[in-house]
């Protein structure tokens, strides 16, 4: 018999082979399920990255939410310093300082005082910009600066790091609240949104 007369296997309707409709849908469902689980996992990760812990200082009359896992330190001439212990080579940090303001003290005086002090303490300290702005509905002064962080120990084999920072100075009756952000220049833009969330949680 010729092939034309009898047809071929492929011409016949198939009733059974390796894959059924259930198998095909099952393969799609497994892939979708995996994508959904990974998506949910990434969302959980993203959300927890923005998790915060509350900080309150009754003495200074401020409260603020800082990133989970950061270390706080209240031993310096500031209200609190919060540092990211995992940041390398320079530890990203937020510093809150309260400066008393007399009747004759202006915002400029406070910022100049900071500049003079930092010029003595920090290598290659430079003020980059000073501008008036509104943060979370509050008028404040923003001062951008940069310096070089170099370990004083000459035997430490590490390149000096360029650090960028911002001071926000907020006038509150007879005091100025200065919130400072400092980060490795390479990571500055990446760390800025976290600092903005930190700033927006400030209550005084």
């Amino acid at each position: 018999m010729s092939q034309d007369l009898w047809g071929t296997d492929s011409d016949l309707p198939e009733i059974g082979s390796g894959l059924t409709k259930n198998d095909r849908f099952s393969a799609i469902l497994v892939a979708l399920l995996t994508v959904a689980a990974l998506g949910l996992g990434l969302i959980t990760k993203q959300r927890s990255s923005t998790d915060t812990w509350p900080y309150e200082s009754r003495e200074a009359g401020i409260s603020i939410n800082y990133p989970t896992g950061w270390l706080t330190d209240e031993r310096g001439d500031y209200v609190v310093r919060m540092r990211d212990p995992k940041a390398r080579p320079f530890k990203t940090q937020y510093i809150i300082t309260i400066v008393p303001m007399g009747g004759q003290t202006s915002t400029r005086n406070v910022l100049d005082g900071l500049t003079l002090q930092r010029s003595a303490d920090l290598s290659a300290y430079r003020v980059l910009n000073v501008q008036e702005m509104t943060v979370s509905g509050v008028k404040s002064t923003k001062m951008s600066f940069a310096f070089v962080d170099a370990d004083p120990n000459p035997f430490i084999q590490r390149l000096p790091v360029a650090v960028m920072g911002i001071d926000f100075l907020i006038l509150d009756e007879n005091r100025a609240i200065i919130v400072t952000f400092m980060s490795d220049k390479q990571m500055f833009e990446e760390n800025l949104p976290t600092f903005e969330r930190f700033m927006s949680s400030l209550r005084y």
Partner: protein
Amino acid sequence: MAYMSTHTYARCTVCGQTLSRTLEFKNRYYCDVHYGLFYQNTRPLWRASILTFGFLVAALLGFAIGNQLAPERFRDTVQSGTGIFIAILPALIWIISLYRIGAQTQFQLSPLPITIFVLGALLSAAVTRPFLYNIVNLDIWIGSTTASNRLMGNILLNGFTHTFTLYAIIRYIAWDSPAFMRRTDGVMFALAASWGYASLINILYVIDLGEITLLNGSLRLITQLCIFLTTGLILGYFIGRNRFEDAPVYHLSVGLIMAATVNGFMLYASSALNSTSLSLTQSGFSPWPGLALSMGGLALTFSTVRGLMQRQNALTQAKLEQIA
């Protein structure tokens, strides 16, 4: 000439051969040869697995005793070459004993488990590791987040990534192969993929560290192995069943969820349990609780999967004999 026919034809689920006489079981069609095979036991699989698990227990005791007796310089560090040897040895024992027992019992095994073993190793190094640790940065996040987030992250990111990779290897490499001719072959292929996958994770762990400690480092390698083998057993059971039955659409998904959840939970728990209290006499770390959990989980899963497979095979055999 146009051809119209009302005739139908079927192909064998295993070999794809066009069938003149259709033998059906749960909406799958078989040729005469494979109809009598799919519910048979892959005998070398269980024996090789029991032998290798026995070796793992013996190795464990060896490390514990060796740690007490060995000079301090050997206890502190094991060189990376020795570490790699410790990481790969159990997998080699499993593969070699699988084929040796197969040869001794005249049970013909295809070379596909070796291919799948190698593929599992390659995918773990080339796909999941870069994805989890370079793109998602999972280790950094897991190390700094809360316990509940660690559990969620381990299940959703670690568990599903590892389990889907193992699933994909079997589903897209072994599923259509004529070498996949028994339900228990699903477990064999899943275990082969898991051995390769886990062994390379362990090898890369040793290479990353440069050297490991004799006891803690070796026990960590065994813990990881047990976790991935448990995942492979669960996955293999569901794939093995689905291959020879037209199971509901959700069947494989349930298997994947179970395997991924167990994988993530064991990864989380083995790490969390190893953190003990810190005191003058305790270092704050003990590898034993995590190891006990993963070995117990493996033993329980192995006996459950083996028992379920054997029961289903016996039931299928009885049913087919009744029909005949």
